[in-house]
């Protein structure tokens, strides 16, 4: 329903994600991470997922993140900027999966990751950035002089689904984020065919001041109410 995008449960909201789907997951460590949608996704028991996400290094303080999919062997490939812990003594779930040859890793500088996702959502096919020139991040990529500076050609990222989290949503999916939970969520919302949001609060449509909407409803297809106490 276009006027009421509220789903009954996280399970229903992710019910049509299938094997091999590409899925963007919002959040930066635990802040802004849709943990309840991830639990519901894991319960589907899918295989060969492609996950696009800021961090996959074991969730720092976050008890539930994409590690639960990696540990369940459901992930074919991860596109991220944080793949391992700083200390070599602690092995992240992604690191282990990569070492075991179970999961492919595409490591992307954080700003380039954000920019590629934004490009995907905004219809931009590719862009030139100075970040990564002269490093391993440039391997296999076109380098070109743009205005006197060497830059890398980076391509847009899109996905079948985005799982995101918001502080507040109205019934048609206008979203508001709080403090540093915003991070990748607004641009992942734009870059997927279907965007599913876990929202801590639901208000009636019209209750959010039009100036304060951070993600317009056009980018959001399903919303699940998960109050903070339950998450």
């Amino acid at each position, binding site marked *: *329903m*276009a*006027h009421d995008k509220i789903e009954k449960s996280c399970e229903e909201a992710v019910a049509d994600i299938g094997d091999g789907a590409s899925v963007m997951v919002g959040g930066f460590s635990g802040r802004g991470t849709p943990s309840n949608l991830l639990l519901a996704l894991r319960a589907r028991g899918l295989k060969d997922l492609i996950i696009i996400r800021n961090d996959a290094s074991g969730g720092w303080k976050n008890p539930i993140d994409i590690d639960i999919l990696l540990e369940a062997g459901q992930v074919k490939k991860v596109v991220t900027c944080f793949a391992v812990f700083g200390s070599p003594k602690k092995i992240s779930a992604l690191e282990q999966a990569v070492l075991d040859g179970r999961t492919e890793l595409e490591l992307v500088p954080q700003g380039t990751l954000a920019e590629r996702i*934004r490009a*995907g*959502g*905004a*219809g*931009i096919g590719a862009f030139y950035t100075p970040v990564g020139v002269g490093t391993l991040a440039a391997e296999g990529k076109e380098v070109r002089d743009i205005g006197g500076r060497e830059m890398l050609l980076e391509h847009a990222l899109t996905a079948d689904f985005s799982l995101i989290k918001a502080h507040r949503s*109205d*019934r*048609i999916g*206008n979203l508001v984020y709080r403090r540093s939970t915003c991070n990748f969520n607004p641009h992942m919302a*734009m870059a997927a065919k279907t965007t599913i949001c876990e929202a801590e609060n639901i208000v009636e*449509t*019209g209750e*959010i001041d*039009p*100036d304060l*909407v951070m993600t*317009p*409803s*056009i*980018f959001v297809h399903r919303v699940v109410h998960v109050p903070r106490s339950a998450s």
Partner: protein
Amino acid sequence: MKEPLSREAMATRVGIELEDGFYVNLGIGMPMLVAEHILPGRRVLFQAENGVLGVGPYPSEDAIDPDLGNAGDQDITLVPGACTFDSIISFGMIVGGHLDVTVLGAFQVSAKGDLANWKLPQRTVGSYGGAMDLAVGAKRVIALMQHVTRDGDPRVVTSCSYPLTAPQCVSMIVTDLAVIDVLPEGLLLREVAPGWTAAEVQERTEAPLIVDRVKEWKTI
């Protein structure tokens, strides 16, 4: 006497295409009339490319908010669920393929769906505005225009003589004489205005029309 359809009737016909829950951008000029012709029970959110989603009716004189306008610089109101944003979000919405429909005015549309709507050939200078972005980005482009020019020249043409807004972007043409679908095999004459025949429409159309499936003008 046989008359072409009124602007109101044309806007009403386009309104039928806008489904419940659609997000739609209406170009400056005649397309804006469509906002007043949404079918009962359907809720459509209108985008204005200057940074509004959820454009409402024009305000009464005493309800004008000077900070709030559409892309044609008209004062507007907002509907419940509306939001405002910057040009980057707005054109991300447009070029990123998020709008279900855009309705654009046109000078010419070609047999392949090429759109020309930004510049008269005799003028030295023109304005792109957001037309190129909308024509390329929206999931569906409906061109809304008079069937012929004031001089009687066809606007549905084999190939546009006016500078293009975007090639192969229009999927439906609504005029004061006809509804035409742009299909890979050519222009399908879908409906003719009441009282007009397919042959009369073809006479006023440069590009050849497929006329074996013509139906009555769709009404509410």
